[in-house]
């Protein structure tokens, strides 16, 4: 899967599962999404891509770019 495709899926999940309106937010996620939205988004991503984020992975994720990179890294290990 390409980065662009992953980004599109994340955008759709943010819209459908985390009630995020508009384009994906720039900058730190926790400046845009509250804790429930972030939780809904990460679980939806795990379900959709069949990956599992560990707490250490999540510590490194600050922005949508980090999130997409994290998904790509997981998919490369378990494509």
């Amino acid at each position, binding site marked *: 899967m390409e980065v662009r495709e992953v980004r599109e899926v994340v955008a759709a999940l943010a819209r459908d*599962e985390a009630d995020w309106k508009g384009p994906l937010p720039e900058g*730190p*996620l*926790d*400046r*845009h*999404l*509250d*804790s*429930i939205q*972030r*939780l*809904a*988004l*990460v*679980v*939806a991503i795990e*379900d959709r891509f069949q990956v599992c*984020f*560990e*707490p*250490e992975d*999540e*510590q490194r*994720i600050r922005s949508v770019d980090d*999130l997409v990179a994290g998904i790509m890294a997981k998919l490369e290990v378990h494509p």
Partner: protein
Amino acid sequence: MNPTPALGGATLPDAIERAASADPALYGFRFLDRDEKATWLPFGDFAARVAATAGALWDEGVRAGDRVALILPTCPEFIEIFFAAQWLGAIPVALYPPVRLGRLDEYHERTAAMLRAVGASVLYTDARIGRILGETVARYRPRLGVRQAAGLRGGVPRGPGAVSPDAIAMVQFSSGTTVDPKPVALTHAQMLANGARITEAIFTLLPPSQGNFPGGVSWLPLYHDMGLIGCLVPALWGPGPLTLISPELFVARPAIWLRAIARYRGTTSPAPNFAYALCADRVRDQDLEGCDLSCWRMALNGAEPMSAATLRAFEKRFEKFGFRRDALMPVYGLSEATLAVTFTRPGTRWRSRRFDAGALARGIAKRCPGAAGEEDDWGAAAGRAGAADDNNCETNADEAAGASADTSSEWVSSGVPLPGFTVEIRDEDGNVLGPQRVGRILARGPSVMQGYYGRSDSPVRDGWLDTGDLGFVDEGQLYVTGRAKDVLVLRGQNQAPHELERAVDGVPGVRVGCAAAVADVGAGGERLLLFVEVRDVHAAAGDLAEACREAVLGACGMAVDEVVALPPGTLPRTSSGKIRRGETLRLWKAAALAPPDAVNALMLGAAMLRSQAGYARSALGQLRRRWRRSGEAA
């Protein structure tokens, strides 16, 4: 000290032993995983695991009186360790795991503060969470360290220790904030008293003697009082089967909750208001294909302000799946009272009323004459009680929805005190207020805490708990209107307002130290309002509001519903310069929040003239009085 309830001097270990003898095919805990696959744990097996876990804890050095901290998700190990600690006479303290994708700095600080506040002897967690707790432990290291929850049930079983009903059974954290967490100490007697009252309410509606089989379903976090005391304790005390779902799964896929209720014929399931809103909004018909929710008789709604609009939306949305109109039960409670204080009477429709918003802001709950049939209805309700009064509610909840008077606001009743509890409304001086007068809510009952753990400050005086909430009583029903205390509670988060206010100090255009964060409870639920004094109210208001929202969300994780930009000097302050948040909200709602009059030389002169005229009138009055007195004397 509060009286020990008439529970035969029982303790939690007694309740476990009692539940252990129940039919293993029918009574136990059921854990649902991500695929909705169930793991069944009969109470008998659970009791055996508790005894074995207690043996393992003992071997690891845990003794009676030790504070045993737990940071675990919803899993069998959580309840096994929690009750095993009590089994030994130790004190379990359940803390919440880190929020996913959240910044951990604040989490470490808050968790360490809570561990320190109770002097935790040991911390049990799982391997996953344990890997990121290093910074927490660096700030507070428990005497016995951080230990793995897995494998403890392989310990050598141990009998329960000699535990007194008046011994502390657990500590739960209340409305404190990051820097000042408040540990509520609860005894076995208090926990069971509250759990037993909830059980009684369930059995009143669904007497087992008449062939009912009450069972619970919960996605609530087990570190939260409503999940722990509201669900686990009644399940053991009843006993009754309890299906447990992780909160994370519920938030991501709310339909799981409703499917579990239908599949396992759950009769009782509580949740905060936002959960009902989330379901009404997100659950699709195809998610509930073949589901019948008519078994759900007690849909308790508490832990945060309730919205009549949400309750109606939920009823309407799930009516087609058999959801009953008498199932929703607004309730009120708080950690310091163990949990529940008031309940809507089981089996009756929830009640809402419209009150004049202006009068309410002045502290008077004046029923709004705009609601159709209101006077007749209330006249009929007065002097009636029990079933007749309850039937009356159905009409009213719907009528209140139809009323549209601009000056009225709709409020949902939190019901009536549970048996053994008393609720009073008092003014700031402690005087008891009559019906329809807004004041501080005080509660008294068998499960009110004795005090905070390890602290001398306490909101309990002479057995009366000052809840820190504001409200009024009307027709014997409690209405909660807001908070007297300065803690914001929104979507399950507690936050000190000054932390939010500090977050906007760096926003360009906002005057430093000139912000007030308040929660406004209204018909649409609770909203977080942020009042900020700005240098120029005409400058790009939208950008400024967005910048404030981002700053607060980033710093505190709370979403601000409305940013109100004010001219300099508008926020009312105390004589020592502190912002008066409650007064800010009151004035704003009364459309009276205005900056002080600008002062110029002309106005100053006019003011001096008025002042001098006042003195002159006063002096003239004195002369007249003297003249009259001298005349009378002559």
